[in-house]
């Protein structure tokens, strides 16, 4: 009983230390975002700045046009996710549950796609997008991510654990494939879909390289592009506004995670653990 008590104390200590390491840089970001110009950097090591200035948030919001940028980011991320789910869910189901010639070979292509870095494909992709006149449109921000090798991989892993009896029963009941997908496969893979959704939104919300190339119209800017205005090397970084902007654009992501985490956490596991 006594040992158990000590173990609890030690564990709480460990948790505290680990949590501190994990969140300290973020706490510092928040601290920087509310600090006055004269205490924004290296103001001793106190987590409370010696002067406060909420003007950083105002500057971040106004100068960077974060309102538009966050709206664009949301549109792009949601559109990408919707299209990815439309393409990947049926395909993952086919990879997991149907038997057809060349299936494994095609799936190897999916795996190979995981290995191709975006830095290598960015320019050819940009030239192609420009050649068809889509550059500087919302479409150009979305369409290259219409499918996701990672999503196919993750969903297929999960769907392969859906018991066949379930699908068989659905067929016996006379359901056609779209109905099977919608009424059986999607509910059964809910957690995996939630996982994929959160990761997909994270990645595209914070993406910088591709939007930099194709989103030139200020009306199309996504959040990371909007923050570039505070990172001008020649005139010095605007630490306060940059941190405030980062806090603003990170907040929705954290909220999203809070909402999704119940399903999210069950998600990856459900697909992986047999039984």
């Amino acid at each position: 009983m006594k040992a158990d008590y000590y173990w609890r104390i030690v564990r709480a200590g460990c948790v505290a230390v680990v949590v501190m390491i994990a969140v300290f840089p973020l706490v510092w970001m928040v601290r920087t975002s509310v600090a006055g110009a004269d205490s924004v950097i290296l103001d001793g090591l106190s987590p409370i700045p010696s002067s406060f200035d909420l003007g950083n948030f105002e500057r971040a919001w106004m100068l960077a046009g974060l309102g538009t940028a966050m709206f664009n980011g949301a549109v792009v991320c949601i559109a990408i996710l919707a299209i990815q789910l439309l393409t990947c869910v049926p395909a993952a189901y086919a990879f997991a549950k149907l038997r057809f010639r060349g299936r494994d070979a095609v799936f190897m292509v999916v795996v190979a796609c995981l290995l191709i870095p975006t830095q290598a494909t960015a320019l050819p992709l940009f030239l192609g997008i420009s050649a068809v006149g889509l550059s500087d449109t919302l479409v150009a921000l979305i369409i290259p991510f219409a499918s996701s090798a990672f999503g196919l991989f993750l969903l297929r892993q999960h769907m392969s654990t859906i018991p066949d009896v379930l699908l068989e029963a659905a067929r016996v009941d006379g359901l056609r494939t779209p109905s099977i997908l919608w009424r059986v496969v999607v509910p059964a893979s809910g957690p995996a879909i939630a996982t994929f959704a959160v990761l997909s939104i994270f990645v595209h919300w914070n993406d910088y390289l591709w939007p930099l190339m194709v989103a030139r119209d200020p009306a199309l800017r996504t959040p990371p592009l909007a923050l570039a205005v505070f990172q001008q090397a020649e005139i010095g970084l605007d630490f306060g506004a940059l941190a405030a902007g980062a806090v603003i654009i990170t907040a929705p992501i954290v909220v999203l995670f809070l909402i999704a985490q119940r399903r999210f956490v069950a998600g990856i596991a459900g697909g992986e653990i047999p039984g």
Partner: protein
Amino acid sequence: MSFTRRRRRAAVSVIAALTLGLVAACGGGSSETATAASTADCSPDGVRLTVTYAPYGEVAAGLAKPIFESRYPGLTVDLRPTSTVGYDDLTQQIVTDIAGGARPDVAMIGTGQLQFWVDRYGPQPIDPAALKPTYDQRFLEVGSVRDEVYFAPFQVSVPVLYTNLDLTTGAGVTELPTTTGELVESARRVKGGSGSAPVQIPRDQIADWPVQAFVQSAGLAYVEADGGPGFDSPEGVRALGIYEQLAADGLIDPISFADAITAFNTGRLAYFISTPALAAQAQETIGGAFEWTVSDFPVPDGGDPRLPAGGNGWIVLSDDACRAAYSAELIGEMLSPEIIVESSKKFSYIPVDREAAEALAADPAVSSPMGYAWRYEGTPTRFGGWPGDSTPRVNVFVEDMVQRLTRGEPTQQVVADMSARIRSAVR
């Protein structure tokens, strides 16, 4: 990857077709030098001018657009800003745009990239007459390649010395150093007082800028006529000896430029070679925490200042004579005295317009550190000038050179070593 043979052949032909298509699509935009036209001979009807710039150009382009469009009804100015964070990024972005078939008419570039653009993309010469009559002609040298003006400097600066007067006077140093010898001497005394390294010279991002300033101010060419480095000589080694001297005595810490800015703004650095463009931010960050000033770049002992112009300006990339003529005039509009005054006040650049310079001279802030650039009367030189597209590679070598020198490696060996690599990159 078990493609079937048929599929593989199909894939290859798709690739081939796509490649051909791309080459064909991009092959159209030739850039032959159009004969100079005057806007008087052209009709503005239906003309579209595309202007690309970094965030620094936002205000200038935004103000000039309506003025220009109302002067030439029927003409449209298309603003294509970039979200880039530096001049290398900016050049990348424009290069990518051009490869994608969207060649802008007017582009902002960093002063150091002029040679690259002239050698690779055939910009149109700018007729100085298209600029405002009050435009300060001494800056046209910065924009000239082979006696032709290709570039109209906009936000220009020369390297300067920032000094934390509290730290220097605290150590009994009352004079501002004007030569590298004096800088080293003063730094020794300041270090004796505080113990930490008192000097920073950029080691990355703009490392090549002070290097060129040291070399030229010692009376040497930075780039030889054949494109090779002009500092691979005993004189060059002497001009660049400052880094090793500072390193040997522990007077310089090997840290990044970004960290150096922080160090100065938080009062931990006595001497900082940097750009006047940072003065506005320094003023805001430092507040009244300590006394500081901006003064002339310290030249090698016995040398005369010949400082390369940093900053940015505009070039004309139009591939049509009439659009080129309009573009040059639009640049003139973007360089109006009002715009120059505003940007100089905001970021402390050297005014490139005489009327603007007069207005700034009357401003009470002219005697503050912000005003150094406004008072500057020297004639800056071109920045960079490595031939063809070797500039980015050479700049990495120059940066490596500075980083090795500030670690205390012997100047002679490092300069010889890096010069050989620069020569191979230039070739």
